């Protein structure tokens, strides 16, 4: 890791995470929200690896392997759901998806 303090990576992680979070809160396009969630996961991954490297363990990296695997599964299912929703309701706008409200 050289002379670079772990805080650098943590700050980068935090910024990316917050950008993803804002995207989720601000956008209404389901696909964009999906991308934002992926971004948040990646930000967390950076934190995990940074902590692992800072404490000289591989546990952080092992966790990331699992989160990536779960993210892949999530992407497959999530995109399937989005396709099914758009096929059904002809929209990917989350604000139009409230048939369970009433």
């Amino acid at each position, binding site marked *: 890791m050289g002379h670079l303090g772990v805080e650098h990576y943590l700050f980068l992680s935090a910024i990316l995470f917050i950008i993803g979070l804002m995207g*989720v809160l601000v956008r209404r396009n389901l696909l964009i*929200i999906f991308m934002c969630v992926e971004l948040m996961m990646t930000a967390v991954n950076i934190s995990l690896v940074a902590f692992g490297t800072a404490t000289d363990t591989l546990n952080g990296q092992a966790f990331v392997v699992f989160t990536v695997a779960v993210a892949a599964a999530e992407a497959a299912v999530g995109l399937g759901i989005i396709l099914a929703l758009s096929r059904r309701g002809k929209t990917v706008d*989350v604000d139009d*998806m*409230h048939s369970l*409200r009433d």
Partner: protein
Amino acid sequence: MEHYLFLIPLLPLVAFVINLLLGRWVVKHASAYIAQVAMFGSWVVSVLVFFDIRGSSDKVLEQHLFTWIPSGTFNVPVTLHVDQLASIMLLVVTTVSTLVFVYSKGYMAHDGGFYRFFAYLPLFAFSMLMLVLANNLLLLYVFWEAVGLCSYLLIGFWFRRRSANEAAVKAFVVNRVGDVGFGLGIMLTFWTFGTVDFYGPDGIFAKAANHAALGVSGGTMTAIALLLFLGACGKSAQFPLHVWLPDAMEGPTPVSALIHAATMVTAGVYMVARTHPIYLQSESALVVVALIGAFTSFLAATIALVQYDLKKVIAYSTISQLGYMVFALGTGAWVAAIFHLMTHAFFKGLLFLGAGSVMHGMHDELDMRKMGGLRKFMPITFWTFLIASFANAGLIPFAGFWSKDEAIVGAWASASSVGKLAAVVGLITAFLTALYMFRCVFMTFFKAPRFNPEAIHPHESGAWMAVPLVILAVPAALIGFIGFPPENGPFQHFLEPVFEQAPAQTTHANEQASLYTIQEPATTRTAIAAAQAATATETHETHVSTATTVTFGIISTIIAVSGIFVAYLTYITGTISATAIGARFAPLYQLFVNKWYLDEIYHNYITMPFYNFAMFLWRIVDVKIIDGTVNGVAALIGAISQRMRTVQTGLLANYALGIALGMVIIVGIYLAGFSTLFR
């Protein structure tokens, strides 16, 4: 021989499987032959086994098949074990079974469930033989339940009849009461001794004999013995669990003969005899056994006196005779009990088969008041029935005389006063037995017919049914002589190795056992001496003087003859009026007719309280309290939800906003210094 032991149970099992799977479509009527051949093969092997065992004084055959439950210290092997006792039982079971199978071919010929019947019967035979052959308590228990199942299936064989179904259920449920005790007894045995095996240095018997040295209290031994005896009570129809047996007569008559007279009901007696080393350690348990047996024999005889249903009379007679066996066990007359078991199997089986023959000839009529004069119509049935009745009544020289007499003498010879009491009860019951048996014979076969000759044409049964009657009549008449001279016959000598091992091991234990006896202790020393003497008497039975034996023989002969004579005066000449006596002793008569009101007592004081309690659980606890709680919680949550639902806008973004807000708050709390809360 021990390599072929497995054939004995296997042959009926094979017959069962074939008849069950193929009976209806493939073998059809040949299913009877399959069952008969299998049973006959089983009988042949049993006979060979018997002769093999007879060769030397204490030979024991054993065949290990496989280990059923290998689990740490809990090992249950499936091992077939044959000693003298088991070999006698094998002979009895296979002989009677074979003959009943032959008889059934004729009796069930026109029944729609022919194949089913000949599938159940071999299953029963298999289970019974395995029960006899089992070398440990658990295996015995398994097949104990299996014969119970067969009994249930066969009582309810005509399942379209409501009464048959109810009788089957009753038999099953009452037996369960006993089996719970048996099961608990097995658990207690394993808990106490750490094994369920009978034999060997680590077996139950060796450990029971040494129980004081192992630190097992006499109370525990009594508890084990009584729990096991509860099971025996259920299966052998002893008071208070005898109520199922008369109802079991709803099954086909061959079933009554085989299962509910000759074999299955004697399983309890067999089990107590098999586990006698346990009983020997508990005087009090033996006293209970003797009292129950004596009381049952008397109770059943009194009821049999006033029944009009031919099969019911014989059923109560069975209970009564089982009572003899049980009080013989309770007074330590083991050999006498087994002897009576064997003779009883033959003559009672014969009685039932004869009754079946009568039913067959009379178009399923069972009420003796509608019979009479059948002697001319069915001579073979009459003569064989008569022989069996003599045997049952205990008339010299028929089989029943020797065994019953030996049981009574054995009871009398035991040192305890209970034994004396049992002997006296036995004699009174013997009189009643002769009376009701010949009441039966006279009402059925003598005097003028009381049925309508136009409608009913009584006829002798066919060869399939008649031949077994004749064959069975031979042992019913003559088998008693193997017990002659009394106390010292070849039968007693044959069984000696099984029961003689007891005294050497028990003298030591009796110092404690004597404290539980109901004898009045003069001093401790004399009590011990008396107990030792008693043990010796119980086990060897050689202390009974010839004079006593002869005296009792004469007394019981007189009693039997007088019983027959009273029956003759009542039902042939009419000198004594039965109705007059019934009117004279009306309360007693009502008591007997209503079977001592036991069914009513059970219904009112056991069944109904449970039923009401169950209704209470359903109506109050389940519906009101449990359902009320569940519904109340649901209603509460529903009410809360109705107020909360306005929060749900249905917009995903708003929910995400909520999550983010929560995150901000949590991180804020963490930063504000409450972080210790979360560590």
